[in-house]
């Protein structure tokens, strides 16, 4: 080994050291490069900054979804991408920015410490770190615990009515006139709303010490226990990830709705989106790829989720944060220090990163594929609210398909295999018939492992879910651990369906009348 090194060293020195000194920035062709993005594009520090800042504005400008004066909630996780996103908004808001951003930002941080078994003290420490970072932004911010999902209303699972907006250009013009006429409006109404909800608000201009106490308020222990129970009932890490994602989305939506934000910015990078693209396909969520990974996700109707960081790779983000001192907060998550094969999400990440190491265009290829999937088509084909939506993820249901479909085939095979299972499990009821007599399990293809009656009957609940969410729920030991708002809304829906069945005859008559 040593000999080899001695032989090769002079050569290596020639090529490598020479290369690093010789590589100049491809943009200004003057300064020496500090970063290689994509194949062969080397940037110097100042050109990289310009490129990074420009891309953010260009992404927002190109898509034209944020109206001037609109309230936008930035979802901040403490991680590098959302930290960079908040920093870009700050940059765009600064007085000397060339094309100033004209929306009204607020920041939301959700403390998810309970899901990975963090102690109260650890969570406090993380939250105060987050608080320190957010205070420096000068934007209003909200710090809430995931435990808050236990006080959400069932209405969170109903689709809102999209606000009718005039033409983008007209809105911009109107805004400019409005701004000249009046000064900035206060946000007292929001504060009032929040006080009612028990959400903790903090504004940099306020007395920070007082606010600090309220922001780090201890969630009720019973809620913490319930949350621990819920996550313990998920049998796989994959399901835990999906569950966390679902609950988090509901809480973000809730805060956005109650505080009057009509847009939420989510900081997924293109690396992360490529990973979710692959994992979502494996999780049976292929039908919703445009919603789950696209630039604008309008499934909630009144609140749109937009992803302005989706054109940055994690490498670009990491370099930007390092070179321009964007501080982020490291908070352990569900997948911290886990084995590579512990969940589908983890496996997809490992797969993408391995591939990316050998083929540097992997992420951009996967990402560009996702771009070709159109969001508007889903809405266009299925109407705005006409189609039934999944109870949990609010995507238009992908389960109302014909009998000659893969979905139907999967269901049948599941049904049959379950029947066999039940026979083995219960020798007393060795025939399928005796099981049916109880009338519990043969109403439809249920997902329970036994014939036990449940507080909420699994089949009707499962019927309200999309295929992907069904798989997640299947991995839950009991539905009873789910937060009340989910169960309430499920009941509400099944009652509505029953009612519809009762009056169906009359409705049909009406239709026929219309036809005549």
């Amino acid at each position: 080994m040593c000999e080899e090194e001695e032989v090769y060293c002079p050569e290596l020195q020639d090529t490598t050291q020479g290369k690093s000194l010789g590589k100049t920035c491809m943009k200004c062709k003057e300064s020496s490069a500090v970063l290689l993005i994509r194949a062969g594009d080397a940037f110097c520090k100042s050109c990289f900054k310009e490129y990074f800042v420009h891309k953010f504005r260009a992404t927002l400008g190109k898509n034209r979804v944020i109206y001037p004066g609109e309230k936008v909630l930035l979802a901040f996780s403490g991680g590098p991408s959302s930290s960079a996103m908040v920093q870009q908004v700050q940059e765009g808001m600064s007085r000397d920015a060339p094309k100033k951003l004209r929306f009204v930002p607020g920041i939301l941080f959700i403390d998810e410490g309970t899901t990975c078994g963090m102690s109260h003290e650890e969570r406090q420490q993380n939250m105060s770190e987050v608080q320190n970072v957010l205070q420096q932004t000068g934007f209003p911010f909200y710090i809430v615990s995931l435990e808050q999902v236990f006080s959400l209303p069932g209405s969170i699972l109903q689709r809102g009515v999209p606000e009718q907006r005039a033409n983008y250009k007209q809105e911009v013009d109107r805004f400019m006139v409005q701004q000249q006429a009046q000064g900035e409006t206060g946000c007292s109404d929001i504060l009032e709303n929040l006080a009612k909800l028990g959400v903790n608000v903090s504004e940099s201009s306020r007395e920070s010490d007082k606010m600090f106490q309220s922001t780090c308020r201890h969630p009720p222990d019973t809620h913490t226990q319930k949350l621990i129970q819920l996550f313990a009932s998920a049998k796989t890490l994959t399901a835990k990830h999906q569950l966390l994602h679902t609950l988090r989305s509901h809480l973000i939506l809730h805060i956005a709705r109650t505080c009057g934000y009509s847009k939420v910015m989510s900081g997924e990078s293109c690396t992360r989106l490529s990973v979710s693209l692959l994992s979502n396909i494996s999780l049976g969520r292929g039908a919703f790829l445009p919603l789950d990974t696209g630039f604008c996700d309008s499934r909630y109707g009144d609140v749109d989720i937009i992803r302005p960081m989706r054109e940055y790779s994690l490498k670009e983000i990491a370099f930007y944060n390092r070179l321009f001192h964007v501080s982020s907060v490291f908070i352990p998550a569900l997948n911290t220090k886990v084995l590579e094969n512990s969940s589908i999400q983890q496996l997809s990440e490992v797969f993408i990163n391995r591939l990316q190491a050998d083929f540097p265009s992997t992420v951009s290829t996967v990402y560009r594929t996702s771009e070709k999937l159109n969001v508007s088509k889903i809405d266009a084909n299925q109407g705005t609210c006409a189609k039934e939506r999944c109870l949990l993820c609010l995507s238009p249901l992908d389960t109302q398909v014909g009998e000659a479909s893969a979905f139907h085939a999967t269901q049948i095979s599941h049904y049959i295999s379950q029947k066999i299972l039940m026979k083995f499990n219960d020798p007393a009821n060795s025939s399928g018939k005796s099981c049916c007599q109880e009338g519990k399990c043969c109403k439809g293809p249920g997902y329970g492992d036994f014939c036990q009656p449940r507080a909420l009957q699994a089949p009707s609940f499962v019927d309200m879910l999309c295929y992907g969410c069904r798989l997640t729920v299947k991995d839950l030991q009991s539905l009873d651990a789910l937060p009340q708002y989910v169960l309430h809304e499920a009941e509400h829906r099944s009652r509505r369906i029953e009612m519809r069945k009762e009056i169906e005859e009359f409705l049909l008559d009406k239709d026929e009348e219309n036809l005549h």
Partner: protein
Amino acid sequence: MRVQWFCFFLSCLTRRVLRGGAELLFDGIKQHQVTLPNQSNPWDIRQLLVWIRHNLLKERPELFIQGDTVRPGILVLINDADWELMGELDYQLEDKDNIVFISTLHGG
């Protein structure tokens, strides 16, 4: 005697490793100063990774090093520049070089 700075950035793995040793908190960055033993050939990154593996990583080294290089998804910065511009594993360390490892993996 060579003195180098190794900053381990937001990586849970190293955070734990460094907990016992000389640990400095600086802008949320964990910094670690190490003195590498003298050797006849100049140190390169390849050798440095082996050294880190033996001296700093006590547990689950595969979260940081795989094969003879860093785990895919971990970025290496040499004096705040991309190591891909500096010859990667073959880069020869100089006195007071600043090597940073940044994990882009979800969960650190």
